[in-house]
């Protein structure tokens, strides 16, 4: 299926900012459309890097490959949690790998402490509070937003209404509308950004 995607690093000649942008775009494609070519491109970029990192840290080929596989599996399964506003794909993927390595070494050293990487660095925890915080921060009342709401694209209106008026979770909305969770998240985000802009113009 994915034969023919070259493994060598084609990004090398591109400067790092453009590279980060294109990786970011690929992650969004994975999150929103479950795009396999986009994932393959990310994989080809990161797998050799993760392996080199893991070999240096753990020094064991089998464990290094396990770390590559576990990290890239999380990227595929949790891509909807990537938030470009918070950092680059490299940083996000590094933190996933760092967490996996931390737990791996804990297990190898047979540490009894019940403190795992999720407690220390909640990289892959869903942050439902995120979107709510924006509206609290901005102290936006429903009436203020009401008129502007009509200017949003229909698809975004549906999602915003379900979450903020009906109080549904993003997962519930995704199931109900039969669209990927990543799409619900990005629609919510886009709608909130749009509303924020409109409010700024409004003032």
């Amino acid at each position, binding site marked *: *299926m*994915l*034969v023919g995607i070259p493994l060598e690093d084609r990004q*090398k000649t591109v400067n*790092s900012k453009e590279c980060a942008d294109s990786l970011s775009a690929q992650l969004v494609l994975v999150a929103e459309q*479950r795009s*396999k070519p986009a*994932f*393959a491109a990310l*994989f*080809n970029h*990161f*797998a*050799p*890097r*993760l*392996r*080199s*990192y893991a*070999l240096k840290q753990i020094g064991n080929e089998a464990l290094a*490959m396990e770390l*590559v*596989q576990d990290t*890239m*599996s999380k990227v*595929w*399964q*949790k*891509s*909807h949690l990537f938030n470009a506003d918070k*950092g*680059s794909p*490299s*940083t996000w*993927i*590094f*933190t996933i*790998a*760092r*967490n996996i*390595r*931390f737990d791996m070494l*804990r297990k190898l050293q047979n*540490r*009894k*402490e*019940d*403190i795992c*990487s999720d*407690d*220390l*660095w*909640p990289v892959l*925890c*869903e942050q439902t509070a995120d979107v709510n915080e924006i509206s609290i921060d901005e102290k936006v009342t429903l009436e203020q937003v009401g008129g502007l709401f009509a200017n949003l694209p229909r698809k975004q209106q549906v999602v915003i209404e379900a979450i903020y008026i009906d109080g549904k*979770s*993003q*997962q519930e909305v995704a199931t109900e509308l039969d669209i*990927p*969770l990543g799409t619900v998240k990005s629609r919510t985000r886009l709608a909130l950004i749009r509303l924020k802009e409109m409010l700024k113009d409004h003032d």
Partner: protein
Amino acid sequence: MIKNHPSLEQLRAYVDGTLGSCDSLVIAAHCDMCEKCQAEVAQLTEVLASESLSLKNELSDQPRYSSMIESILQLPELPQENAIVENVSIELDGREFVLPPSLRRYASVTGSWSKLVGKLWQAPVNIGGTGKANFIFMEKGGSVPEHTHKGRETTLVINGEFSDGMNTYKSGDFIYLNDTHTHSPLSNHEDGCLVFSIIDEPLHFTSGVARLLNPFSHLFF
């Protein structure tokens, strides 16, 4: 205003994942309360990420990854799991103390409060392993007899303030002490002081009657 922070080396080791889990937990909780260290950690993470995932010393013998990609693509997208946190606070004598997010998971493994000498309360936190974690509450005027540490003590002030003859510590302050420090914490704050503390060896008392406590210090902390 938080005055006492982890050192840059501690933050770097924390971000790198090479710091011990006990110290890391206290640093994570400190960062919940401290915007400065939060920003520092974000910055360090970015730097470390680009260092760690660069391909400077590229390995020539790359294995074949195609079967790995194939098996990953078979995995389903994981549904959203909402982290369920039952307790965001702990209670002592009718007073509620909201915990920084990193410590909330431990509220459910916190034992009941017991009263110690000198207006001092202690609730053990079961973190497993050899480190001893406790919530310690000093009532106003409460103090811990002068002591030094055989091991390392990492402490975070969660509420109120105390002083130890060297400094005054307030909410969010991070305190790292090893066996070169001798101190006697005392709280004169109206609200007393709640701290979270992890020690990897029992305390060693150095003064007065408290010296007699030493053989029993494993009971005390």
